[in-house]
């Protein structure tokens, strides 16, 4: 190969090189996306399991947010491994609860004491609403059918003083 061709090839290679000038500035090196990363079943499962990094997010959201968490990719890999072994999402959830405790679930199972967690708000609104309806209905029944006018006869025609006071009150309302 002639010298000119050699340097020409080098220049082409250099131009084609897609290496980043400052790789560390682009975050940690990633692994290519695999099939499991876009699997709808795995995604649904990960939305129900909490990341253990302390972010309060589920595994899917955490691992696809900012991509700085080191916990959620591991948990994701663990789920993929279980899935490859043929475990169903329910079985994987069970394995995770046994390993990490109940707090791995993004929401507790509605059984036992946890059921109270789900039912109390709705029941509270229902009970308060029922009480409100009963009290209001009872108060309605006790209303007199005819109401005497509370305005004395001599106040029916406003005096100058009354009008001044009324104007003051109205200006207050308009404030």
């Amino acid at each position, binding site marked *: 190969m002639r010298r000119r061709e050699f340097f020409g090839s080098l220049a082409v290679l250099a131009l084609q090189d*897609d*290496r*980043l000038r*400052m*790789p*560390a*500035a*682009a*975050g940690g*090196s*990633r692994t*290519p*996306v695999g099939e499991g*990363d*876009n699997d709808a079943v795995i995604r649904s499962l990960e*939305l*129900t399991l*909490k990341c253990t990094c*302390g972010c*309060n*997010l*589920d595994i899917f*959201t*955490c691992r*696809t947010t*900012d*991509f*700085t968490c080191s916990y959620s990719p591991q948990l994701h890999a663990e789920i993929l491994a279980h899935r490859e072994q043929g475990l169903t999402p329910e079985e994987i959830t069970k394995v995770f609860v046994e390993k990490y*405790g*109940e*707090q*791995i*679930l993004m*929401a*507790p199972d509605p059984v036992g*004491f*946890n059921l109270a*967690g*789900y039912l109390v*708000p*709705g029941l*509270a*609104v229902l009970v*308060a609403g029922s009480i*409100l*309806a009963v009290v*209001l209905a009872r*108060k*309605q029944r*006790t*209303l007199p059918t005819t109401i005497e006018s509370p305005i004395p006869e001599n106040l029916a025609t406003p005096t100058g003083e009354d*009008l001044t006071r009324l*104007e*003051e009150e*109205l*200006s*207050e*309302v*308009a*404030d």
Partner: protein
Amino acid sequence: MTLLGQFALWLGLLAGVWGVGVGLSGKWKGNPELAASVTRAAYGQMIALVVAALALWKGLITHDFNIEYVAAYTSRNLPTSYVVTAFWAGQKGSLLFWALVLSMFGAVAQVVTSRRHARLLPYVAAITTGVTAFFILTMLFSANPFERLAFTPADGRGLNPQLQNPGMVIHPPMLYLGYISITIPFAFAIAALLSKKLDTGWIHAIRKWTILSWLFLSVGITLGMWWAYVELGWGGYWAWDPVENASLLPWLTMTAFLHSVMIQEKRGMLKRWNVSLIVVTFLLSIFGTFITRSGVIASVHSFTQSNVGYFFVGFLLAIGAASFSLLYLRWPALEAESRLESMASREAAFLFNNLILVGIAFSVLWGTLFPIISEAVRGVKITVGPPFFNRVNVPLGLFLLFLTGVGPLIAWRKTSPANLRRQFVFPTVVAVLVALGLAVAGMRNGWAMMSISLAGFVLGTVLQEFQRGIGARMRMYDEVLPLALIRLVNRNRRRYGGYLVHVGILVYFVAFAGMAFKTSREATLSPGETASLASPYGHTYTFTHLGVSQYNAFNRVVSAATLEVARDGTKIGVIKSEKRQHVDSFGEKTFEPSTEVGIMSDLREDIYVVYAGSIGGTERANFAITINPLVWWVWAGGAILVFGGLLAMWPGGRPVGRLGRREAQAGFETTLSGVPEPAVATPVGSGVEEA
């Protein structure tokens, strides 16, 4: 300057002690000088805190890294706007910010409140200076922003990259303004209880404060959602995080109050309930602060764990006990002046609206605290995340949306069945048509369909109210449509501003429904390669990786990945997402690389791209691509809601002057705009009657 700052804090504390001691003792009664001294204490406290704030700002701007707070939250190469706003970026500075703003609100309340409420003002000053004093006390003994280091570092640590966003410049102060301004209505409520002036006077005095607080909270929450969406990179705007929940709680109870107070104004009912709501709202604002600052519940938004939580718990318990004891003592004096006449009345609708709003607040509080309750009862740690909150709150939220449409359709006192039928026809038809349209378009998600249909119902209600009002004015005064609309709204800004707020809320609900159709995928792309993703509207988007460029910016190294986007084969633009490595003035890394999301937004859907990182240090990169339907509607809903709120609280809006006032008095014949008109009863919807 730190000495001056410390001294100012102590002076502010002393002013607070004077304000509380004299103001609450009531010894100022019959002694105008003493009464004035309480007001002066409020002004003095404000001046002291302005001095303290200026001292901290000077430390920040001059990079005085010997101050621990300055070193912890700024650096020499931090852009000046973020240096200034670092004032509220950390625990200590935000406590000072809180105290400063509260002292300002307290002073403003003394100035702008009508002299008719002069008897309440010393009590109000006592409460505001007292609450401010609590914050100063917390700073002095637990989180002092003027604390000095034993050495002076060459540069500061800098501001967390996620806080270096325009949203974070304005979102926290807005939320703080909301939380803080709640203290003023609370102070008036307590003043009314203490002074036994329990007529509607205190309600009139706080009307604008309550709307203002509510507006600040609304803006703060919406900006928080925007910041979370554009900055955090998780593709959503609400995660039911404890700190998010804490901001929602006072908003819900304040919304309830804004409705129930109308019943007290109109009918003299619900006095006890209204005082309770204001007290609870204030306590929830303090509770929110406690959650954010104590570290008792894990949250991504929390400040560093510290012992300020003990101060807040003590304050919360003391204020709660004192307020409810006082309410109990005044209970007999808060008897309703009238009774509910019919279940088919606006009063009843508002009562049920209050029930649902408070019910949602309770369920959010319950869910937030349930992990602690569960651990205490069972000894087992659990997580209560979005699936729980969605399951519990979505049905309640939809019922609330329904009531939002029902309230304006029912008359005060009593509504006849015939009137009910007439009022409900149009909104119901709109709701049914929307539901049918969605079904025909192929929507199959029940909750989303219900949400959008109910939004249609509310829109129908609002349109009907406007149409009737405009129609009445056009018939009576021969006005053209735009003039009739302007005058209708102008004559009763509170009512029609309220309707616009309802429109804002329904737009929110439509946006929330859109998130049910979110789609996403991850892809690894080399330059020139493409990935595709189908949108819920049936479009296919293709994304072509154009490459990654790297460059140095002011305080960071930027790696920018660019994707070309095509919809159904037609190029529609490019999206750029970045990784940012922040550095200090010596070029040293300060934080882990952060991500800047790339967003392409339109009315129907957002394309949301996150550059996850590169493979082996090359331009071959991983991307997370999400299509979020109707996100634009969230921001539109927020804007409409704020516009409606501003309209409702804007001064004026009623006929002014002697002639105008006489117009409002029954039996007086008046003329409008110099044109003789018959003296008639004001027609429903003409804009003169009250909401």
